């Protein structure tokens, strides 16, 4: 047996670039996104204007920021139904803390980060301790947070929305970080788009280049086997829930600093949209497979569809139907492309 034979062990085989591309989980969704984009470019006259595209990107970013950690969590084999209201909780905490304590707004923002991360850790801790399905645990937190949001806001502010903190110290600088606009040429881009891209980049790096990334795939694929080879399953899952909490904090601060006040009842139902974006982007509901870039593409499809229908000037009574149909078609295309890719790989 010569040395070259050993080098050609199949695990060490270098795959061609083409093979690498068609093996990616997000490939199907990219094709789906291209199709949706083409469709609205033809159907909706004002869709291709730079200002419209920036609105679409903004809509996508508000979903996408949350879809990234939700995708990681799904790869790790779990759900988080509390993600939607957690965003509102995070915004309420920083707003009310700053107002009631008459503190610099940044203090409230910091306190909010701690509270939000603690809620994320609570989710993870309860899940790993009780071994109940994450659906049950986070459904519980979802309902509790919905009640706490309203209850505390009414108790403290007397109404269902918080008081404006726009005239307080630190507001302007915090607004710059979370809710400013960047003008590129003639187009206004919201800063959330940058947050979104940064989160996607960091999450992709974690997934593909770090040990923690390997752990995520391992616990989502087969938790018991992963534990047997020494993967810290509990730590990984708690970490993933805290990741969701961190993103909820970012979106929550955006919500607060773009409007100065927060409505305590908002956010309900958004958790499903985050999950949908992750699934369109190629995450398997059963865990162990998916990508962060895919979730971004999923959010982009969602943003394009929801705003494209407006630009196309279709009757809004049918809005939800069109939305559902477009999403279904995008997902079907996604599945079909993936199957073809797997067949040729």
């Amino acid at each position: 047996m010569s040395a070259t034979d050993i080098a050609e062990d199949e695990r060490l085989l270098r795959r061609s670039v083409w093979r690498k591309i068609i093996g990616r989980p997000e490939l199907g969704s990219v094709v789906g996104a291209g199709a949706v984009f083409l469709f609205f470019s033809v159907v909706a006259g004002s869709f291709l204007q730079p200002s419209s595209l920036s609105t679409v990107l903004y809509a996508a970013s508000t979903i996408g920021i949350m879809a990234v950690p939700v995708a990681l969590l799904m790869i790790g084999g779990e759900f988080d139904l509390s993600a939607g209201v957690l965003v509102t909780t995070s915004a309420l905490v920083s707003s009310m803390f700053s107002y009631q304590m008459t503190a610099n707004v940044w203090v409230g923002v910091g306190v909010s980060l701690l509270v939000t991360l603690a809620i994320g850790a609570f989710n993870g801790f309860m899940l790993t301790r009780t071994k109940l399905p994450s659906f049950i645990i986070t459904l519980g937190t979802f309902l509790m947070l919905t009640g706490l949001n309203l209850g505390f806001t009414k108790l403290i502010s007397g109404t269902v929305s918080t008081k404006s903190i726009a005239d307080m110290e630190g507001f302007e600088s915090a607004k710059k970080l979370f809710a400013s606009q960047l003008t590129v040429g003639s187009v206004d881009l919201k800063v959330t788009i940058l947050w979104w891209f940064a989160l996607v980049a960091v999450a992709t790096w974690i997934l593909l280049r770090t040990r923690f990334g390997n752990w995520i795939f391992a616990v989502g694929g087969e938790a018991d086997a992963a534990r047997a080879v020494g993967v810290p399953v509990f730590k990984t899952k708690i970490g993933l829930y805290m990741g969701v909490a961190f993103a909820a904090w970012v979106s929550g601060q955006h919500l607060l600093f773009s409007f100065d006040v927060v409505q305590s009842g908002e956010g309900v139902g958004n958790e499903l949209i985050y999950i949908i974006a992750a699934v369109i982007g190629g995450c398997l509901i059963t865990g162990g497979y998916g990508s962060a870039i895919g979730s971004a593409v999923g959010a982009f499809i969602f943003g394009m569809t929801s705003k494209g229908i407006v630009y196309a000037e279709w009757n809004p009574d049918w809005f939800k139907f069109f939305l559902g149909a477009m999403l279904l078609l995008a997902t079907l295309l996604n599945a079909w492309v993936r199957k073809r890719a797997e067949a040729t790989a």
Partner: protein
Amino acid sequence: MRTPRTATTAAVAVAALTLALGGCSSSGGKSSEDKGSGSPGGGKGVNTPRLKIAMVTHSGEGDTFWDIVQSGAKQAAAKDNVDFLYSANKEGQQQAQLVQAAIDQKVDGIVVTLAKPEAVKDVVKKAVAAGIPVVTINSGADFSKEFGALGHIGQDEGVAGEAVGDELTKRGRKKALCVIHEQGNVSLEQRCAGAKKTFRGSVENLDVDGTNTPASTSSIEAKLQSAKDIDSVVTLGAPMAAAAVKAKGDANSSAEVDTFDLNAAVIKQFKAKEIGFAVDQQPYLQGYLAVDELWLNKTNGDVIGGGRPVLTGPAIVTEKDVPTLEKYTARGTR
């Protein structure tokens, strides 16, 4: 193969039974509709240039109130040669994005509601800065001018609430339940606060989810069962009135149901003496005047109300007004 065959047999049997019972209903249904009443007007439109006007509201899905606003707006649009676009989302952030989409479409005018004023503030100012005239409707009269809108057409929610409080006092009521069907909507809170201000008895608020009628009904029912001293239920929208009437029946309560806004179902319940009074804010007028104002402004530089809020309500409607209003509510314009 037993199960599929049994299922098929059952399906055939049900279909046969349906046919055997005859396809027709002897009462109600499409065939009982009054055919002679279309929308008012219906004459020829003007020959001014075609305009595109977008309306963005905070409505939930399938609310009769916003249907009436829309039919008013569409009537004005047909008269004024206007291309009318409608979109809505009950979340503030989403509503703001929809206004932004209207700006991107370079419409000639925007009609917007200010139920969550802080959420749409920036984007309304942006529209004004882009040279697109904005008319605000429904609630938010206090913010309209500050945001740079051309005018406001709606109801002062506080005043409307006070009218309810007065009427409740007049009717000798002691304890009222104010049902808020869109949690976080400032104008709804103002209505309850207004009622509390003028009513001699006490007012308690109850939050329900207006887009989920069964859940709302059971919430009201639970409240009526636990607080027996409630003698009137005030709902803040016509669809909720039906839910309250049902809850009242289920809870065996003798409370009187009163409501904001009208629709065909409320008129029916007036006749059945299920509802005491309603506060009408004429939604048709809000849609109609808003589109008309934008058209008048574009073609003649007019401002309705001279820049001050134009009030379309409140008007107290009772059983006595039913005969005149009935045909208008049936076609969805009152």
